[in-house]
């Protein structure tokens, strides 16, 4: 389902400006502190931080499963709720980012597993919904590419 997102041809959009690079496939944009060199995500003001494209590959640093629908506002996802994996992904030498982990059975999620950046739909049932920061297990991603 998420495999064709990066192939273009549909009118899809990031949930906010400045999150993803324009490449295909895209990367997350972090911010490198112009004074200290510390990398954070998302990129704060470009006055203080230099935007940097982050690594696509990382490992799962920690995670949980969001089992109830968050309150709206601020949550803008669909009314019909399905649980998802909240992941913290370590991008080696750069930063650990919080994002969704898609295309994985909850019982297969393990700290340390390799993952790949791949934006996901805010609403899985609506191909036109906004794209949000997400990763997928490396194995699944490889199958989709093949």
């Amino acid at each position: 389902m998420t495999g064709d997102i990066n192939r273009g041809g549909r009118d899809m959009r990031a949930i906010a400006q400045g999150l993803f690079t324009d490449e295909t496939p895209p990367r997350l944009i972090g911010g490198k502190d112009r004074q200290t060199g510390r990398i954070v995500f998302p990129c704060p003001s470009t006055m203080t931080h230099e935007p940097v494209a982050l690594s696509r590959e990382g490992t799962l640093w920690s995670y949980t499963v969001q089992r109830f629908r968050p309150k709206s506002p601020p949550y803008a996802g669909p009314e019909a709720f399905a649980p998802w994996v909240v992941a913290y992904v370590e991008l080696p030498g750069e930063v650990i980012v919080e994002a969704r982990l898609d295309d994985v059975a909850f019982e297969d999620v393990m700290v340390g597993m390799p993952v790949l950046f791949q934006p996901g739909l805010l609403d899985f049932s609506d191909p036109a919904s906004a794209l949000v920061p997400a990763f997928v297990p490396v194995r699944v991603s490889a199958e989709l590419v093949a």
Partner: protein
Amino acid sequence: MSDVCIVGIGIHKFGRTDGLSGLDQGVHAVREAMADAGIDWPQVQFAYGSSDAAGNPDTMVDRLGLTGVQFINVRNGCAAGGSALFSAQMAIKSGEFDLGLAVGFDKHPRGAFNALPAEYNLPDWYGEVGQMVTTQFFAAKIMRYMSLFGISQKSLGLVAEKAFRNAVHAPHAWRRQPVALEEILEAPLVSDPYTKYMFCSPAEGGVALILASEKKARELGKPLIRLKAATMRTRPPHSFEVFAPSVDVVADDTRPRPTASRIASADAFTASGIGPGDIDVAQLQDTEAGAEIMHMAENGFCADGEQEQWLAEGRTEIGGALPVNTDGGCLACGEPIGASGLRQVYENVVQLRGDGGGRQVPGDPRTAYSHVYGAPGVSAVTILER
């Protein structure tokens, strides 16, 4: 500098009290604390009040008396109550005042806390994608800790089981029915690895503490419960906190991250000249079961990973070597943010006075420790001595 003593305590039952505002519950606690101290409102020289969602605390002067008293409102995430107490003791330590009030109350809607990104200087999308949820952080923090230090889900269950069992004997607690370990472990997951019994709920309640200089405490003829240390700290570099879209990469990530709690705790032990091994009873922030486990180590009571054995041996039970959360903590009392940190100190005073009834720590405890943690990385610690 004068030692600061706690000479009066008051509480409004935690939980849900329809028909009473958060402020009403705070006023109830203040009146009870004043009666306990044997003083009247005009004697109160200053107040610090904390409330997160129930309005400005200083508006309670309308109810207590328009004496012109100095009254400062405190908001500091879940550490608001601890911050109010910290500020109040500074006012006495400075020599400026010798009798004052720290009060906290709150009244939250049912369900999870509903924070908005802008309140934490985060972009709107962070909330839109469903990441503005405190429980995600707490679950992710324990998930990593469990993988690093071999803590089992059963230990999470043991903490929750103890909380509800202790609360049976705490009149101010909310959930006072024991829950069997099996039921806790087999309940629906809220945010893995936590089941619904392993998270506290937003709640209502009020707590008030009357603080006095030692000289004033002696005049009032109260037993001297000394506040030997009160510290409040914000987060150090590389910490992992609530509402963190990113976390620093560190060279050696096999140990727990530095936290505001670690430095607030270390500073409190240094300031008081009391060590972790000298503490007779502790109230540790337990907004979820794993927090109590991680905070045992962050506050210096055990090494990372030892908690598994401590819990198996019952060392944090009321009759154990270090009783923890003797009134059931946040798990059983719920969390009215403004009041929660002050409840811990209230409970410690009860224990040091020997007034704990069915939950009284045996052996005539003389030292008591409290610790509160809040977003986005604030922590407050107190050490009391009788």
